[in-house]
């Protein structure tokens, strides 16, 4: 287990599949809502990989946590990156709903445990917390901003600040995260997660002001 850094680095580069497999396994453990207080050792044990396996693939805890964060960011934002077309408002709507469904699910499962782990580890290692955030949430927000910007340039959307809009949408989709972080058990809601995401995207794209009111208020 105690290897030199250079040996670890060589192993990490030569075993990308193992890294990916370990990250997927640990993400799966974090998604288990019943084990939010689990320590890292317990998480490693339940992942099915020995600590020796893990530390031969990763250079340390920072490397592992950042890899998980990157993995999550890629997973959440894949619908923004791999979309087929972007010509109409319906295209935007479909892409955002697909993105929102994945994001909402991750915010209510894997990312709950991940955020808690990040907070606990972050107290000991504040720089890690920032790097993890940059590798995860910031990447997702950037891809969403790029998507919104493109839609704006094509005249499909009409937004003045794509970054702020992207953050608003992220905040809107993050509600399950706050629910899970603060309410255990999570309070049941009248609508399903999918309906909630669709309603949220509708609100983001269409707003809720009635036409009469909007016309009136825009004149004042």
């Amino acid at each position: 287990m105690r290897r030199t850094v250079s040996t670890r680095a060589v192993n990490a580069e030569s075993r990308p599949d193992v890294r990916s497999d370990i990250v997927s396994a640990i993400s799966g453990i974090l998604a288990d809502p019943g084990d939010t207080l689990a320590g890292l050792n317990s998480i490693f044990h339940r992942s099915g990989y020995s600590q020796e396996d893990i530390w031969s693939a990763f250079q340390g805890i920072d490397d592992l946590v950042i890899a998980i964060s990157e993995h999550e960011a890629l997973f959440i934002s894949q619908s923004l990156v791999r979309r087929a077309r972007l010509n109409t408002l319906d295209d935007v709507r479909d892409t955002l709903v697909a993105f929102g469904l994945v994001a909402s699910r991750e915010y209510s499962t894997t990312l709950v445990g991940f955020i808690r782990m990040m907070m606990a580890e972050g107290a000991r290692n504040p720089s890690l917390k920032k790097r993890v955030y940059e590798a995860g949430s910031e990447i997702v927000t950037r891809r969403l901003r790029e998507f919104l910007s493109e839609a704006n340039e094509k005249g499909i959307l009409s937004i003045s600040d794509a970054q702020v809009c992207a953050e608003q949408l992220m905040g809107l989709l993050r509600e399950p995260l706050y629910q899970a972080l603060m309410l255990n058990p999570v309070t049941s809601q009248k609508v399903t997660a999918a309906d909630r995401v669709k309603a949220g995207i509708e609100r983001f794209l269409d707003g809720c002001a009635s036409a009469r009111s909007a016309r009136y208020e825009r004149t004042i």
Partner: protein
Amino acid sequence: MNAPFEAGRGSWLARSSDNPSSLKVVDDVPSDLANSADEHGSLVTVDPVDWIICFVPGLKRQWWHRFVHHKHKHVFAMRPTNTGSWLLVEPWWTRMMVTILPPADAVKFLRWGGTGDILRVRESVPGRASQLRGWSNCAVLSAFLLGRSSWAWTPHGLYRQLLREKSTRRGNVKQLLVDQFTKVVSHHSSNALSVSADQLSLPLRELLIIIGRNLLETMMTPALLEVCYTAILEADRYPNATRVYAQHGPRRAIAVLTKILAKAKQAGEIALADCEAGARQFLGMLYGNIHLEAVLQLGEIPTLSEIDLRARAAVKVFLDGAGPDEAGILAPGPLSNVGGSLPVAARRAWVYLR
């Protein structure tokens, strides 16, 4: 020895306290200060407060532990403040540690206290302790802090003495956190969600901007961010405290927003099937990334002008959407004098929407 002195019985250092003006003024002290001393010789008169006294086992093994009670090897005192932080007074062998702890750190000490016994004890003012008591171990210094005349030499001796007092109450960590969170979060929520009667009659767009700005400004106060951080971190260990945060914080905001939206819906200003869902959506848009970033202590707290801009942007998207056919209403000009930028402290007299 220049601290406020005791006028208690039998103390050969005690001086008459009946008439402060009759005290002999020291030449080096300005007369206005000397004359403002209260009946106990103190420059300020502070009402007695409750201390949380924690009798705990040691964190690390010490040779003398075998001679004292198995759970009461050390004693320290804590007191919650109005801002979510805690005052800690912990006697060490080598110093007296007096510091302000953020809630997350305070929970560590409270958990330590929970491994032994916790008492809530009202301090005595001016007190009956004496500096001449000597041997400044943790039990003696804690008794001194409380103003107790005590001959107890051990934490357990002090514990038994305090427990004999009728006003002493036992405490537990869960309830202490619930009480503290309730006090801090409800205070901030009330301020954030206060709107004047005049503002209630404003068009929805303007009212939402005012409320949104107040909410964001309040959410970004360091005290609330620290309480939120602790609520998340301790959600499994102390779920009731976390639930209290949610009930008095976000849920209260959602309830008020829901009422505002329902009223606007009735007036035909908005088309919303579910006003509570709309309130949640609006709050989520306000949160954006900045709240999570602030809770995780990842960046600078936004300035008031940034908060204002974000509140306006959230209201705009919430009402008009990001789709085409928008009107440029983000410029702060027309609304800058409507309700104004609202300092939280100035809202106390306003109507609170319950």
